[in-house]
Each structure stands twice: as structure tokens, then as C-alpha cells.
């Protein structure tokens, strides 16, 4: 066991308590800053490793990490099974389109839209959470499924009213001109600094994701956060303890929906185009893969799951490129489908053998080293 004992409350309140944690934090921050620069280097790694594809996958994973972690906030900590979470990605992309600088938007900048989207998401989240006051468990799961279909219809109607059958496009956001004096901001000939390409987007998405994750981790350390857990464990008992169960549930819905909506805006702007095709019912399956493989009751699980979801296809594709596998015709033809099948099997295997997912695996490894050479 480590010999660190907490002696006062101030110390106990800190997120980072021990020296190893501090070291991990510093290394992590340095690595995070270094990765986009390393990705910029023109370098061919051995074995044709798909180094370049990392940029996009990282950004997608970061943007999705907010959504997946927020899903875990609601499911893992508050115990409310809501499948309507994918619907808030739709809400986010619609907010981005209505307010944004696209052909049919109000012309607001992305930096204004992001906080507004969080508020919109929270308000709609409360509305969607209302059924949670009446039904629970599987019945809530079903009720929120209805919300998902409603959101898809809304998006389809909106798309039909604006861009007809084309996808809704999102123009690249720019840094306002009064901020151009900042270092690393080099405006182009037109005097604009557009956020385009994986490198620049990384510096937008990464800080927002970090903020959202820190926010969620901190919410769970407050009175409200503990109330979430109490409601999950036993809502009748929680009510007897003086927790307002209805308000707690709605707060959890609001917080988590706001985060997912932000994630939806970021995704829409990063991918630059969204259509009703991109928001099918299958998006629920994607969220399921992320949360299950990551581990569906921790914030860390959501983040790990999102990275798994976007990084694993790269690795699988890389493996498929190896000589002897590449020569099999069937694998070549069905590459993407094999990925999907592996994901589906991963869900089953994880839930049968390691229900805590990657986050649980991480905890096991940590415990192993902490208690070495003892087993318990």
C-alpha cells in the first residue's frame, strides 16, 4: 500500500492528491501538447503504420468523449437509462445549423453557439427527463426511445425545409480579428484565421473536452453528485434521506444533456456536414459500443470507450494491410463490416467476462502495481 495518508479536508478535496498522480498529470499534459506536433511531422513509420489517420480519429474521439462520458454520468451515476442521448447530438447539430454561419443560419460564431447550445441542451434535457419522474428502468428506456425518433423526424423536416435533400453544411469557424495578436495565430491573405484541418481543430476540441470532463468529474464531487449516486442506488431511500428525487433526476438530465449537445455542435462543425443519414438509429449502437467497452459506470470509461471506438478501426485496418491477410479477397472486400462485427463481439465479450470494461481493466492494473507483490 502507498504510504500517503490524508490528514485534513483541504487535502481530501483536491483532485490530484499524490506525487505519482502529479507526475502522470504533467506527462499527460506534455504528451497531449506534443501529439499534434508529432502528427505534423512528415515521417513514415515502420510497417506502414497509419500515423496520418490519427489526427482525424483523435479529434472525433475527443469530441465523442464528452458525449460518452455524459451518457455515463446519467446512466452510471444516476441510474437513469436514457437512450435519448443520441438525440441530443441531433439537437446540437441543429442548434449549430440554426444559429451558425451556414446558408440558412443566423450567422453567429461558433464561440457564441457553444455556450448557447449547452443551455438549449440543458432545457430540452429537463423536458426529456420529465418522463423519468413517472417511469423508471426499462420503461424509461422505451420512453426515451420515442424521443430519439422524434428528434430524427425534426432534423429530417428541418433539413427538408432548408437544404432539401443535401446535407446541412457547417462553415469553418474563424478566430475574431481582435484576437489575432495572439501567438501562433497567423491570418491568411484574406485576413482571417479559419479553424480547418485536424491540427487546428485539435486545439479547439481538446480544451473544450478537457473542460467538460473536469466539469463532470467535479459535479460528481458535490452534494448534487452524491445525490445522483443515492438516487441510483435506491431512490426511495434517497427520498427518505431528504433528497428531492425529482429535482435530482432532472438536474442529472440537464447536466448530461448539455454536455452531449456541446459534443453534437463540435462534431457537426468538425465533420462540416450532417444529414439525416448521419443520425440514424444506429447511432445508439455506436454510443453503446463506446460506453460498454469503456466501462459503463465511470467518466473515465466514457473517454476510454470513445478512444477505443475511433482508434480500433485504424489498428484493425493496419493489421488487415499486412501481407498475408491482405491477400485474402473476402477480408479485403468486407473490411468495414468485419470491424463492426468485432465491435459487436467486443460488447458481448466485455459484458460477459469484464462488465467494468476498459476502465475496470485500468483499475485492475493499477491495483496490481499498488499491491505488488501481494495479491490482495
Amino acid at each position, binding site marked *: 500500500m502507498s504510504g500517503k495518508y490524508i490528514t485534513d479536508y483541504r487535502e481530501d478535496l483536491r483532485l490530484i492528491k499524490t506525487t505519482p498522480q502529479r507526475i502522470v498529470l504533467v506527462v499527460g499534459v506534455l504528451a497531449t501538447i506534443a501529439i499534434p506536433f508529432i502528427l505534423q511531422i512528415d515521417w513514415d513509420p515502420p510497417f506502414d503504420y497509419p500515423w496520418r489517420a490519427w489526427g482525424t480519429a483523435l479529434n472525433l474521439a475527443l469530441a465523442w468523449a464528452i458525449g460518452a462520458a455524459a451518457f455515463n454520468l446519467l*446512466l452510471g451515476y444516476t441510474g437513469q*437509462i436514457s437512450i435519448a442521448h443520441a438525440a441530443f447530438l441531433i439537437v446540437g447539430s441543429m442548434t449549430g445549423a440554426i444559429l451558425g454561419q451556414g446558408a440558412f443560419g443566423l450567422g453567429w460564431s461558433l464561440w457564441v453557439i457553444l455556450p448557447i447550445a449547452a443551455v438549449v441542451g440543458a432545457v430540452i434535457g429537463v423536458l426529456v427527463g420529465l*418522463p423519468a419522474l*413517472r*417511469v423508471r*428502468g*426499462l*420503461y424509461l*428506456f*422505451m*420512453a426515451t*426511445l*420515442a*424521443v430519439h*425518433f*422524434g428528434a*430524427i*423526424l425534426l432534423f*429530417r*423536416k428541418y433539413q427538408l425545409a432548408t437544404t432539401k435533400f443535401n446535407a446541412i453544411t457547417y462553415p469553418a469557424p474563424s478566430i475574431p480579428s481582435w484576437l489575432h495578436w495572439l501567438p501562433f495565430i497567423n491570418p491568411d491573405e484574406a485576413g482571417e484565421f479559419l479553424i480547418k484541418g485536424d491540427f487546428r481543430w485539435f486545439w479547439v476540441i481538446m480544451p473544450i473536452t478537457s473542460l467538460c470532463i473536469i466539469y463532470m468529474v467535479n459535479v460528481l464531487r458535490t452534494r448534487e453528485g452524491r445525490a445522483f449516486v443515492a438516487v441510483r442506488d*435506491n431512490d*426511495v*431511500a434517497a427520498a*427518505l434521506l431528504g433528497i428531492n428525487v425529482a429535482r435530482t433526476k432532472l438536474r442529472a438530465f440537464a447536466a448530461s444533456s448539455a454536455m452531449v449537445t456541446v459534443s453534437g455542435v463540435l462534431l457537426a462543425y468538425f465533420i462540416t456536414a450532417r444529414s439525416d443519414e448521419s443520425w440514424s*438509429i444506429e447511432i*445508439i*449502437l455506436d454510443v*453503446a*459500443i463506446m*460506453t*460498454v467497452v469503456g466501462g*459503463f459506470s465511470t467518466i473515465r470509461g466514457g473517454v476510454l470507450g470513445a478512444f477505443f471506438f475511433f482508434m480500433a478501426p485504424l489498428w484493425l485496418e493496419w493489421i488487415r494491410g499486412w501481407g498475408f491477410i491482405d491477400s485474402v479477397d473476402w477480408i479485403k472486400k*468486407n473490411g468495414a*463490416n*468485419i470491424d*463492426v*462485427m468485432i*465491435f*459487436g*463481439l*467486443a*460488447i*458481448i465479450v466485455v*459484458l*460477459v467476462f469484464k*462488465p467494468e470494461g476498459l476502465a475496470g481493466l485500468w483499475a485492475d492494473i493499477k491495483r496490481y502495481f499498488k499491491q505488488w507483490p501481494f495479491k490482495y
Partner: protein
Amino acid sequence: MDTFLQLTASGIALGSVYAMVALGFVLVFKSTDVLNFAHGEFLMLGSFLALTFLVEWNLNIVFAIVAIAFIVAALGVALHYGIMKPLVGQPLFSVVLVTIGIAIVIRAFLLMTYGPLERGRILALPQGQLDIGNLVIPYVDIILFLVSSAAVVIFYIFFKSTTIGLQMRAVAENLEAAAAMGVSPNKVFAVSWGIGALMAGVAGVMYGNFTAVIDLNLAAIGLRAFPAAMIGGLDSVEGAILGGLIVGVSEQLAAGYFGGDFRDVVAFGLMFVVLMVRPYGFFGTKDLIRV
């Protein structure tokens, strides 16, 4: 009025398919407490197998239905022994997620085998139509209704008057007491999975004759079992039949009057309203909450 009758007629045909799907879904939920998200994929598997059997191999339709029913039922039983059995006692949502995993695997399998292109509907049933006044009822609709009714009736007799049906009801009522009386819950679970999958598979074959195109969106039709089962009450066999008919008719009416986009929304919106007003459906049992 003519439009209304016309839509209602085709709604009843569609609803009878939903009733069959919902029945299998409710059966699995009732005895094993598993909400099977992969139920739509079972249906889709039935439709795609029907493509192979009826369109590619030109087999007799009765033989094809029996063969497909057997294959899908075997798959259901295999799923129980292979995957669901070790999961007994896990939290509710992890079991739901496992069925989502199964759904993903079946989808991927179908994509690999049949490719992403959509296929036309199966034309194995007689294609004429029956004219009653202004009402036009295709033979397919009638056969659909008859087959579904037959399946439902056969199931109902099986469920109410055979030994294994009695055992199924006993396990659903009280698992420990049933086990103490010598009923093997494991066997009952397996049979429930088998019959549940079988219903979905047969419904898939029938629906393949009814739908416009066969592609991976068919799974959404299987998901329609959710609102059907919910409206009737999640643990009620009679409710599933009624719920299926209600969903089918209201969906056809909505699609006829407002446009096809409203199909999903009406089915699930109706379920939403029922859930809010009567959370346990029309026939479901209300469970008590204890600390």
C-alpha cells in the same frame, strides 16, 4: 372514408405482423426478464433468409417458412446457452447492452453476406387483389393476416394448455417456486428464446412479402415490437396482440394522412403517451416499489 377504410385494412395486416413480433418479444421478456434489443435483427434475418430460400433457390414457400423458423429458433436457443445464460443476475441494462451487441453482430453478418444494396420485395405469395366496393385488399395482406393469426392462435394454445407452456407461465410468475417444484428454468428460458426468435423469423418471412424493399432498415420494423408490447403491457401476451394491431393501424393511418416520415414517430409517440398515462400498459401487472 374510403381512404380511412383502406388504410385501416392494410394497417390490420401490418398490425398482425407486429402482433406476432411483439408476442415473441413479450414471451422472452416475461420468462427471462431480458429486453431483447436484437429482436428486430431476428426479423431481418428471417427476411434475408427468405430472399435466399425463395428468390435465389426458388423453394416452396411452406417449406421455406418451416426451414427458416427452424434456423432462427436454433439461433435463439444457441444465444441463450452461449451468451445469455452466464449473464443471469447481471444488472438490467448490461443485459440489454448484450442484446445490442448481438444486434450489431447480426447486422454485420447480413452486410457481409448480402451486401449493402437494397433488394426488392419477395413475390412468392399470390399477387392479385380483392375488390370490395372501393376497397382494394391485396391477397398478400390477407395471407399475412391469416398466417399471423394462425401463429398467434397456435402459440396461445401451446402457452395455455401444454406442459411446457404451463412451466413457462410458472417460471414467469415465480422463478424460485417453479424451480422448487422441479421445473428447470434453464430449459424454459431456452424454449422461450427459441419460440421468441421463431416468431420474429416467421414474421420476417411474411414481412418480406409485404414491404417495398428489403434492406438493413427492416430492423426498425422489429423495433416496432417495443411500442406494441409497451402499449399492451410488457408482460402480457394478450396485450402484445392488441398492441401490435393498434400500432399497425395507427401507423398506416399516420403514414396515409401525414406522410411516411411519421411512421416511427407515431408508433413510439403513442407508446410514450401510454407510458405517461398508464405506465404498465393496458394489461400489464403493476409492480410494487420497496426500499
